[in-house]
């Protein structure tokens, strides 16, 4: 180790890894439905894409977790985004491609992707 820069490089690389362990109550929570219905509709690739894209783009203050069945099995894979202020967006029939757009547009720019939401689908 010859410089602080080298140390900082390791720290920044590792930060993403350990960020999962920060139980931040003010984080935006991205919750993926992972009951049997969700898994069989393809929720696992959606979940993993979300995790990887958030890490790749270095998005801070976002926590990706899972939940069980929320009762709208026909719309799975379902992804809900909870804002710290209590706001909630429900995305339905998600795919990994859609997940990437949600990360970029919603989580990074704060603009929900209206056309993927449950409201757009049931209109």
């Amino acid at each position, binding site marked *: 180790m010859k410089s602080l820069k080298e*140390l900082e490089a390791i720290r920044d690389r590792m930060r993403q890894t350990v960020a999962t362990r920060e139980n931040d109550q003010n984080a935006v929570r991205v919750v993926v439905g992972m009951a049997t219905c969700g898994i069989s509709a393809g929720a696992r690739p959606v979940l993993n894409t979300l995790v990887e894209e958030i890490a790749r783009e270095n998005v801070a203050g976002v926590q990706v*977790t899972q939940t069980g069945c929320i009762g709208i099995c026909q719309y799975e894979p379902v992804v809900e985004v909870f804002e710290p202020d209590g706001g909630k967006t429900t995305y339905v029939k998600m795919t990994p491609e859609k997940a990437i757009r949600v990360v970029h547009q919603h989580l990074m720019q704060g603009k929900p992707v209206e056309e993927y939401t449950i409201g757009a689908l049931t209109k």
Partner: protein
Amino acid sequence: MFRSHVMICGGTGCTSSGSDKISAEFQRQLERHGLQNEVKVVRTGCFGLCALGPIVVIYPEGSFYSRVREEHVEWIVTEHLLKGRPVRSLLFDETVDGERIKSLDQTGFYKKQKRVALRNCGVINPENIDEYIAYDGYAALGKALTQMTPDQVIQTVLDSGLRGRGGGGFPTGRKWQLACADRGKVKKYVCCNADEGDPGAFMDRSVLEGDPHAVIEAMAIAGYAIGADKGYVYVRAEYPIAVKRLRIAIEQARDYGLLGENIFDSGFDFDIEIKLGAGAFVCGEETALMTSIEGNRGEPRPRPPFPAVKGLFGKPTILNNVETYANIPQIILNGPEWFASMGTEKSKGTKVFALGGKIRNTGLVEVPMGTTLREIVEEIGGGIPEGKQFKAAQTGGPSGGCIPAELLDTPIDYEHLSAIGSMMGSGGLIIMDEDTCMVDIAKFYLEFTVDESCGKCTPCRVGTKRLLELLEKITNGEGTMRDLERIEELAEFVKNNSLCGLGQTAPNPVLSTLHYFRDEYLAHIQDKRCPAGVCKALLVYKIDPDKCRGCTLCARACPSDAIVGSVRVPHSIDTNKCVKCGACMETCRFGAISKG
């Protein structure tokens, strides 16, 4: 990229209750469900709540699973990690609040804690230097070497008000200052005292197991401050996990060039060697410790000369305790004002305690100085189990004293504890309930010091032995009032004339119990009675003829045929035959048997 981290406690407590197997089972189940690339299993240091071990915490939810068994693992993997449904029945019940799962820092045990020395314990994998670096590890060393002069480092430690956490409470910055002359001209050493010996104390052990890099980093900073290029960690061989993790950590630090030559291109060289101790209590004393590192029999020598002048191998040496070191990197990083903002006027920062004895939440706690004993016992510790009454708290191990219930509101810091006849010690905190005999406790600690006295000086070698004999006389019911006077006289003599801290503090448990629980001594001497029902020689078991139904159960349980009586007629105990084992009392269904 892992979406979830399963943190499994790898401290000594949880390891001995099977966390190794749980970890292997997690790995197996994750592979079985194809989750091994999504979920990461991490072995950590101690979470603190040892009473509920083995502990598993799953992130990002922060779900706290307690008393996990191997057969629970499949359930947790399929429900929680695969389907996203935390297994509520296995969660620590205090974190389950109806539908909501509370975070750990909202529970009674963690709410009042402030983790500084323990900040990485249970958070990182201690065998992975990158994880330590992720939490700003080695940044303090980098800052000291590249942006501060050695004198500035010492001034920072001085300003923080940090005092030795091994028990003495000597200001750490002052200690460093005393050894800082002639940097670069004379050989000097930095030592770490990890010879934690108080019965019931496991603070240093947990720091070494959970965050070994913090100690290494701090020792290097100390080396830079005083101008030493060599460090020794003196750790007892009976801490195998701590030794193993420390070895791994030193290797990793060397690989990264954080130990070795020209660290951070600053021209500063530093390396660390581990010395294993055989576990003699006296080797926790600084001069005995250094004598032992030199390869000699662990015996103390008179001071002065102090180690700062003439220490290890006759060279200027500083010796600090593990917990003291664990505070240093954060003081350098966050500044002395940050550290001094915690605690009381003369005792800054936090203190780690190993909470044990008759208390619900046995474990490791870290609180700001000035927290009262009551907060630790009742709120963090969760009170005394089985509805029993609190009787005393023992701090400072064999060198400390017992604090009675009426002093529960004493704020814990160096000054307050010595004012009430105890001491901070290294941080063992043993809680006693109404079933504890205070004379017996004093005897227990004295037996320990008699065993551990190195024998070099007479006051300690002979004095503690004579004290113990006097106490044995009392617990055997043969004590006289004259013996009490003798104890007090001899205790003072041993205190004032012993060579080292071991002997100088050995009478403390006797003196403090005699001060606060004199009535118990008097009951043993004058009434030939042990109020707590512990001292066997003074116990008499009796059968209450009004309650006894003559069922003969007790007579059959008695190993010495001391119970006489026929069926349906109240029985009685022949005290000459009774061996006071208590078997009759346990078997009686009518509560007819009492002891006293």
